């Protein structure tokens, strides 16, 4: 796009850039707070007012055993539910993009529905179902709930990623004598894997952070967000900031790996 040559145009252009930059900064203010306050040593039980800098929280991030326990539960739940949802969702995505069949558009709509339903409705309806069945709410029900919204998410994300995939590659392989199974594992799967992994990573993050749906379906189980919410009346330890920062750094790291690998692949493709 050619840059405007007039003075007013230049100012307007510059103004827009500054405005956008401010928007980006706005997005990061709380993140900066979270990281900064993970180095805080609060006077009381609430890590809300800055006292002084300390590395103690980072040297002993698991000091609060209840918080750590809840965090571990969140990780376990996320791992299990993401695995299940990735399988189910990828199957759906493959079905939608590889084949053209009757009912595809209706199915698309059906898949989008859980993502457009307010979480509070998703959570309370599942909880009502479990009440109805007399199933006590806990670990299993939380996993079921998470898989439910993750499946749609994974399916739609993978399908978007896989859209450009050239399915004729499969035909080529089969012309060369490969069985359908072999074709899938050797040709198709490796190529759609990045898309699947990206979707899995995102839905893992969704699961760890989920609050509303989990609140309704956890019973007395404590996950990371539930623990923070429940104990916020009494305390907010800096270890919470530390754990949150850890999750952030880990996610960033994984994303960067993905970005680097895909750009490397793009470069080699050329």
């Amino acid at each position, binding site marked *: 796009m050619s840059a405007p040559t007039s003075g007013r145009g230049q100012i307007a252009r510059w103004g827009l850039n500054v405005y956008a930059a401010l*928007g980006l900064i706005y997005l990061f203010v709380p993140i900066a707070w979270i990281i900064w306050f993970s180095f805080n040593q609060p006077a009381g039980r609430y890590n809300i007012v800055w006292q002084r800098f300390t590395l103690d929280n980072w040297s002993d991030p698991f000091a609060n055993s209840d918080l750590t326990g809840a965090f571990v539960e969140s990780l376990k739940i996320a791992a299990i539910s993401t695995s299940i949802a990735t399988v189910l969702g990828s199957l759906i995505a493959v079905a939608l993009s590889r084949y053209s069949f009757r*009912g595809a558009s209706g199915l698309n709509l059906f898949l989008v529905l859980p993502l457009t339903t307010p979480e509070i409705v998703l959570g309370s309806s599942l909880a009502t179902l479990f009440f109805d069945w007399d199933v006590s709410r806990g670990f299993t029900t939380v996993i079921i709930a998470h898989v439910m919204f993750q499946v749609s998410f994974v*399916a739609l994300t993978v399908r978007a990623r896989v859209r450009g995939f050239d399915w004729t590659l499969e035909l080529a392989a089969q012309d060369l004598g490969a069985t359908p199974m072999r074709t899938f594992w050797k040709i198709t799967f490796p190529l759609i894997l990045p898309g699947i992994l990206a979707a899995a990573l995102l839905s893992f993050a969704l699961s760890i952070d989920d609050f509303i749906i989990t609140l309704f379906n956890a019973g007395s189980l404590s996950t990371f967000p539930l623990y923070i919410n429940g104990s916020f009346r009494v305390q907010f330890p800096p270890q919470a900031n530390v754990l949150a920062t850890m999750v952030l750094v880990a996610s960033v790291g994984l994303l960067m790996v993905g970005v680097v690998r895909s750009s490397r692949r793009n470069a080699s493709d050329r």
Partner: protein
Amino acid sequence: MSAADAEHDREPARASTHRDELVGLVALIAAGVLIAAVGMRLLTGPLATLAVAGLLAIVATLVVMAIAGGPQARRRLAPYGLLKPGILWLALFYLAPLFTLARESLSTLPSRFAVQAEFDWSIGNYTQAFRDFGPQFTRGFAYAAAATVLCIAIGYPLAYVIAFRGGRWRNLLLGLVVLPFFTSYLIRTIAWSSLLADSGPIVGAIDGLRLTSVFEALQIMDNDRLINTPAAVIGGLTYNFLPFMILPIYVSLEKINPALVEAAKDLYSPAPSAFRRIVLPLSLPGVFAGTLLTFIPAAGDFINAEYLGNPNTTMIGNSIQDQFLVQNDRPLAAAMSFVLMAVITVAVFVYTKFLGTEELS
């Protein structure tokens, strides 16, 4: 596979439906309905066992058909087979719960502390929802709408700059936009409660710059307080849903052919005119998607109101949560949830129509 078959498979639409496809689709739908019916206890006891047996029979039949029918049939039935696990999961854990919730909303509790409600088609819960929670509904939608507008105001320019001026930094910038998403929603909100606290930096800055009375006049601050105000709640909603607005807008902006914009600038100068006539309409699908992804969850949110609000800023989400988890009045909570969904659906419908006519003109 022969070349003719390959040709056939690459055909986009099918004018007539092959028998296999029909069977596959019907089987999928039937399986979904059966499992949902069992899930919401429409069929119980022996009928339920029958339904499950029927389900297994359907799956078995499809498998047999696929094996016996040859590669063509397999190809046609394959998608339905792939879809089965995921769709069945959704049927059981998304559809069935919704129907159960609907049934609960038409039930009444036999006594004040009873645990199970009795289904009796009564609409008392709905009338109570409208009668007692009108303000919360209104506030929920008003705050969500305000947050959505703010998200567009902040998010559109950012998406624009990234899409058209990002160059090779695009992916990095997008990554930065998505980054906050990877920290806990709750902790982000708590961060705001600290930043906006009475003794926090922002109030300190406002007081220092002597802008307090300005902010109070604008109804943003209240008695030298920034937190526990409606402004804080709306601010929190805006912040938390901003990425959901930026990403769809970016996607639709990115698709626009830059050559098109160049041509428009040549035709319609000055540049803002080109923007208004070409870029803006083309980006509307993104704005539409972003609005949905922002407004719908925001309307049902209760966390921002809980952490950043006061007793006068409760949203419908707070009320539903309270009725369901504290007052243990699940039928009422169910009715309120459905009213929420109904209003959202209507709002989305109206919005779609509105955008549709815009595009026509």
